[in-house]
């Protein structure tokens, strides 16, 4: 039950895009087509869960026992960068179709702040390994949900007659704002 709550809260109530503002770059950049949005969210889910598990173990088993917890930021970003590179290499070798589907998104993920953000937030929230992993999974699903909904709306916006100055980022941000308003309906639940 506790885990269900974590999943529900991280997907809907504390949505990574609409409530925490993490991962805005891929959200605004890669969300013009539903198909690419699905690819991106699959890649993010994969890396986010892996990154959270490995950074958690690293912090608890290596950094904390040696009293060098303050190196968190440096260590985490290196772990995430190498993890992304490793996942790319393994996918290329093991599964060509999966690599073709996710490959182009992987380099972008290193600088996706949702990943580093989630790995840090897991410690700020004092989660343990299992609840932290579930939290990371829920956050990634929330990211996917947001980016896929938004891509669907954006495909429609492209056909609309938008005022010149509002074209591009402004209309995208205002649409996101309205979506965030809708998601506020979930606040207080869970």
């Amino acid at each position, binding site marked *: 039950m506790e885990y269900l709550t974590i999943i529900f809260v991280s997907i809907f109530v504390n949505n990574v895009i609409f409530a925490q503002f993490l991962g805005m770059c891929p959200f605004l950049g890669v969300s013009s087509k539903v198909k690419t949005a699905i690819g991106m969210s699959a890649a993010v889910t994969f890396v986010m869960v892996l990154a959270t598990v490995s950074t958690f173990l690293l912090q608890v088993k290596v950094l904390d026992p040696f009293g060098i917890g303050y190196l968190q930021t440096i260590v985490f970003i290196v772990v995430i960068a190498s993890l992304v590179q490793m996942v790319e290499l393994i996918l290329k070798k093991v599964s060509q179709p999966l690599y073709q589907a996710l490959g182009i998104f992987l380099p972008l993920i290193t600088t996706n702040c949702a990943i580093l953000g989630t790995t840090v937030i897991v410690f700020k929230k004092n989660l343990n390994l299992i609840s932290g992993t579930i939290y990371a999974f829920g956050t990634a699903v929330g990211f996917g949900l947001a980016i896929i909904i938004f891509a669907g709306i954006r495909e429609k916006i492209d056909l609309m007659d938008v005022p010149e100055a509002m074209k591009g980022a402004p209309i995208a*941000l205002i649409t996101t704002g309205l979506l965030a308003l809708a998601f506020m309906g979930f606040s207080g639940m869970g």
Partner: protein
Amino acid sequence: MNLAKELYRGIVKENPTFVLLIGMCPPLGVTNTVINGMGMGLATTAVLIGSNMVLALIKNIIPDKVRLPAFLVVIASFVTMIDLSMGAYVPDLHAQLGVFIPLIVVNCIILARAEAYASKNGVMASAVDGLVIGLGFTIALMIIGVVRELLGSGSIFNIPLLAEDATTILIFILPAGAFIAMGFLIAAINKLLKRFQ
């Protein structure tokens, strides 16, 4: 090098937030008050100046294959210094900004300046570039902060400007309002820039 011209470039022509639209998380996440926006902007500026200078210094000894990880380690070291100093000297602001301080590492602006400027120019020029781009970012954050704080809580720099019982538009200090305020601001700036060109 003309400092006025460089300032114009960083703050208006190549403003990272309003014109280039990179590093969009902090402008949305920490601008519910002007002070938060300013603190975040100055912290990012400090990291930007430091990382630009160091990367300009060592650009020739970094092998091309490990360029990105090497850049990230340098940037992350500066972020850690800023993170720890802010925790010591301005603990309240540090707590308010929360996870966004370590996230300066993955702010696209910093990596973009390292890639586009510091890896091609000298130390002094890179420091100036870091300063002007950082100021452009800080000013953008403060503008968004002014709009959101004024509309959402009726104050600026925590100084109340409206009568005590005045109704404010609460939505502007909530996440949804961040997106809406930012969207309208970028549209207005697009329009203004077009008129002056």
